[in-house]
């Protein structure tokens, strides 16, 4: 059985996890163009090598980050998202249809 180490719950069967795609910078909510958003939402780099990905331990809904080698499918390390995202990001998008 293939396993993965959840930073909160420890080693678990891989069937308890789902992948949430690459970790990458979000376009600026105020100034991002449609092309930038389309790229962010729909496109994958599909890199051969070590990538950073979002993973979720579904029994706890705990999202974390894994570094995985896409060539060997080996998970090199996992850590809480809080290690990378240290500050709250507020969405102060322009008011388009407001009162």
């Amino acid at each position, binding site marked *: 059985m293939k396993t993965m180490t959840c930073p909160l719950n420890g080693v*678990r069967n891989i069937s308890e996890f789902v992948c949430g795609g690459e970790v990458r910078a979000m376009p600026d909510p105020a100034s991002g163009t449609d092309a930038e958003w389309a790229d962010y939402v729909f496109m994958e780099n599909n890199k051969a090598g070590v990538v950073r990905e979002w993973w979720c331990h579904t*029994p706890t809904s*705990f999202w974390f980050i894994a570094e995985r080698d896409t060539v060997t499918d080996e998970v090199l390390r996992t850590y809480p998202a809080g290690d990378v995202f240290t500050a709250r990001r507020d969405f102060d998008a322009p008011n388009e249809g407001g009162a």
Partner: protein
Amino acid sequence: MVRPVEYARRSFLHRRLAEHGAVFAEIAGAAVADHYGGVDGETVGAAQLALADLSPLPRIGFKGKNAINWLISQGIRGLQADNAVDLQYDGVRAARLAPTEGLVLCDLEAKSGTCARLADAWSLESAPLCFLVPRADSHYWFAVTGARAAEMFAKICGVDLRPDRFAEGAIAQTSVARNNAIIIRRDLGRTLAYDVLGDSASADYMWRCLLDAMAEFGGKPAGLSALRRLAAE
């Protein structure tokens, strides 16, 4: 005679329990399956392997960045480590499921008013970044008791729950019979026992799964009386 349909707080699967011959009793204003046959025989059976439904008993959860701090400010002890349970002075057990999530389970006698007190004390305004989770409504609560419980779990759960590997008070949030569940080791006196909590919509499915898994070991339903006797041994 206590009839669950006359109680607002009753088990999600009271009809299934009645099919097994459950005799219900009123505990803390709820209809709980007290026993199915003779309590003496049921206690002996529960020391080997049995399944009990504790769903009508009080429990409450809190989520959010400030949830653990708020619980501590309300007098809950411990909560220093993830996936661990801390016994409180009144027999209530408080679990830290994550740095942002706590769960409080009442005592088997349901005499403590801690869960109700926490529910009364909490409000969106007085507890910023702490949100109430109605675990008594959202989650079933079963107990799997007996010396052969770990052997039974090995059939349907990937986590090693053997008593020498999974200590008293440890928590595993994992997949049981392909359903997400929280497993907490909580021995009753000298008897090995585990709490199992999961989505209340799956209560009937999980009840049947667990009974099916324990059939080869002779496991049967047990009532709250048998569990209390084991706890007192």
